[in-house]
């Protein structure tokens, strides 16, 4: 119905974003042999003890849960790299550092299910959380720059979970500015705000009985 705000601004649930992240590849070191898997999502393995191989995270989690592998944390999850990223995030108030699109979900999954495989897990976890906070703060300040002339926003390097969280606010703010900045609305406030009456010729003779 015209003018009604869209209640379906949250398009993906958190579980759905995590589902997408679970398809990202991660390196594992199996401790047993398993034949090659010809899955719908791709071919993986064969798996041999102590031989590094790459699989989707959901598969890595399943093996890990059953004690069949250790997970090698991705390179970007090292203390050095995260420390650097955090510094760079702080130093550049208008830019986001390049991190995997699913860095929030991947790190959460690994912290929850493979913490013993991550060196310095406490520090790593704190760094990831700090990075998230700094980035969210940046998104918030970016918000303040939206105005009636905003027709496009570029969010280079914003990640999936970040997109999902800011989406409702962003869409609502942009839409509000777009609506109020519509020149038609300023020139003809009457007709523009009442689109339902467009094309109505008023009461007609044929409304009269007989």
């Amino acid at each position: 119905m015209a003018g009604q705000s869209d209640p379906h601004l949250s398009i993906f649930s958190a579980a759905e974003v995590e589902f997408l992240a679970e398809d990202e590849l991660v390196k594992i070191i199996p401790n047993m042999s398993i034949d090659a898997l010809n899955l719908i999502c791709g071919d993986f393995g064969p798996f041999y003890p102590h031989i590094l191989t790459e699989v989707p995270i959901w598969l890595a989690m399943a093996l890990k849960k059953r004690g069949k592998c250790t997970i090698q944390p991705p390179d970007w999850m090292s203390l050095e790299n995260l420390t650097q990223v955090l510094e760079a995030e702080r130093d550049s108030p208008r830019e986001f550092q390049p991190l995997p699109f699913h860095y929030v979900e991947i790190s959460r999954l690994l912290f929850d299910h493979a913490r013993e495989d991550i060196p310095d897990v406490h520090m790593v976890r704190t760094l990831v959380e700090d990075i998230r906070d700094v980035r969210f703060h940046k998104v918030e300040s970016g918000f303040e720059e939206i105005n009636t002339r905003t027709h496009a926003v570029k969010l280079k390097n914003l990640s999936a979970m970040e997109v999902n969280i800011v989406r409702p606010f962003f869409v609502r703010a942009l839409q509000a500015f777009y609506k109020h900045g519509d020149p038609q609305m300023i020139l003809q406030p009457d007709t523009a705000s009442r689109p339902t009456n467009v094309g109505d010729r008023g009461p007609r003779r044929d409304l009269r009985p007989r």
Partner: protein
Amino acid sequence: MASGSDEGLGFGSEDIDASSISALPTEVELLKRAWRNEKASPEILQFQEDVVTNARLQIEHMEETVEAYEEDGKDALTVSLYQMDLDRTEFLLRSYLRTRLQKIEKYMIHISKTELWNRLSKAEQNFATSCKENMENHLKQSVLSRLPYGYQDFCKQSISSEEDDMVPQPQLDTFVFCKSKKTVGSFQLDEGGDEVVDLIADDLYVLRYKSIKPLVETGQIDLV
């Protein structure tokens, strides 16, 4: 556009070399892409018939594989890994079809009166027809038949309305988050040409759906 006839699916060009073979999207990636776009787009998109058919074939095949493995006494671990892969694909397929049905349920009248109709599968069209009839009957019995002559139309406020003026329709000027796989270059967002954006590969943008609609429809840009 550098690559002309690729239907937006990222393949179809002649010069596939060894390095790009591994980059070919799998069936499930195509399904995932269709699912994401459908979920994030305010209006219903073209039904991805081939993607759905292929996904169903793969699911069927995998069900048989899992069954055979179970009968052969294959180790439980391998069986459950195959089962999980199957579950994931089935979820995507179901959710994709469901997302479309929910759009039909919401905009049945609009869809049945516009070119969007041709985006539905045959089965979806049948569903949409029933949906519309049910809704029309319900509104007729509850409201329209009780209103004065001249005010009983389902799509018009009264007979003096020149066109359909009470059909709920998707909001196309909403903003969407999108990402392009390849660099599109400068792209005009409005008719006047005052709003131009430079679309670079892999960068994320928030844009009005209406202005990038053609890029979504040709698969040059993905909604996220």
